[in-house]
């Protein structure tokens, strides 16, 4: 079962992703409300999540910086960037995000991208 860390500063968005992903059979192993908390949870987690769903505009540390730090720690980490800032896509990909979805997106599109990552893990 694919494990996920959800990072977004809006509680209702975190709850939304968590509810839908759990309904679709994913295991949400953690949630974080800013980049720094995401980094801390990622570091402390004994089992690294298969996928990190990362927002950009957050207090303390933004998504691009958090993505860079996570990938510095674990170059194999898979970060899917989701943001209402479409102009940040290039920055996110340059930071190492494997994919980018502009908000609002269809959850089916997110799940399709996560399945692609699960498939590549399985091979």
């Amino acid at each position, binding site marked *: 079962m694919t494990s996920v860390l959800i990072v977004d500063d809006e509680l209702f968005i975190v709850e939304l992703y968590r509810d839908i992903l759990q309904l679709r059979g994913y295991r949400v192993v953690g949630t974080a409300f800013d980049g720094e908390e995401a980094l801390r949870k990622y570091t402390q987690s004994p089992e690294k999540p298969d996928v990190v769903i990362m927002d950009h505009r957050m207090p303390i540390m933004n998504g691009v910086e958090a993505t860079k730090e996570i990938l510095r720690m674990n170059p194999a980490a898979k970060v899917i960037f989701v943001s*209402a800032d*479409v102009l940040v896509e290039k920055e996110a990909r340059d930071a190492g995000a494997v994919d980018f979805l502009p908000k609002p997106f269809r959850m089916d599109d997110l799940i399709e991208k996560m399945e692609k990552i699960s498939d590549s893990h399985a091979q």
Partner: protein
Amino acid sequence: MTDMQNQRERNDRLSFFMDLAGHDMMNSNQAVLSYLELIMAAPDVTPKTKKYAEKAVAHVRSSTMLVEDIRRLLAARLASSEPMKAVNLTNSIARSERELRAFFPAKKIKITTAGNLGDVYVLGESVAEYLILNMLVTLVKLDIEENVEIGISVRETTVGGNECWVLRMEDQNSQLPPGLRGDDFDSVYSKDSSVSVKITGLIFSKMIAESLGGQFVTQELVRQGERRGAALIATLRRARSP
């Protein structure tokens, strides 16, 4: 402080506020869209409820587009002093086609191009690509049928000594609001709000095209004396392939 500095500061503040408001609205739309998806996917949902939810999805997408219109225009305006980069419209059309179907899940949309368009490089990068999506969405919104067919063609031209591409999209069931001709949207926009709300997408398309140094016009299609759809035509500055 000079008037110009004051103006720049006001612009910066406006831009900052619009950006924040837009960001928050996208988050809200994300929640609405996702819950509608849940409703549509529920095993006990009736076909009627599903249809209502599909229509609601189109409205969420519309409100998203309005916010994005404003953000893009501001971005284009603020970046107007920087050199513009190229984008291949053929790729933009393919990407926009996919987005368009997600935008209107209740409609069956078919897009055909006049032959192989090949490489059609224009200036404006993501703003030009956004214009393509905006034109397609506007055309579909002006078409009340469930089955929508859009034809796309491109041709070369020269405007004011600049090489350009003319992009034409037409739909034989789209209806332009009465009184709208060519590119004279501004007068219609200010005269009658019941008409102007129907042409917001056209106004934005025109503003975006002009911010890229191009043009945008509409054309009513008439066959045997009857109104038979509409064409949206954007003229964009040609770019070399990057």
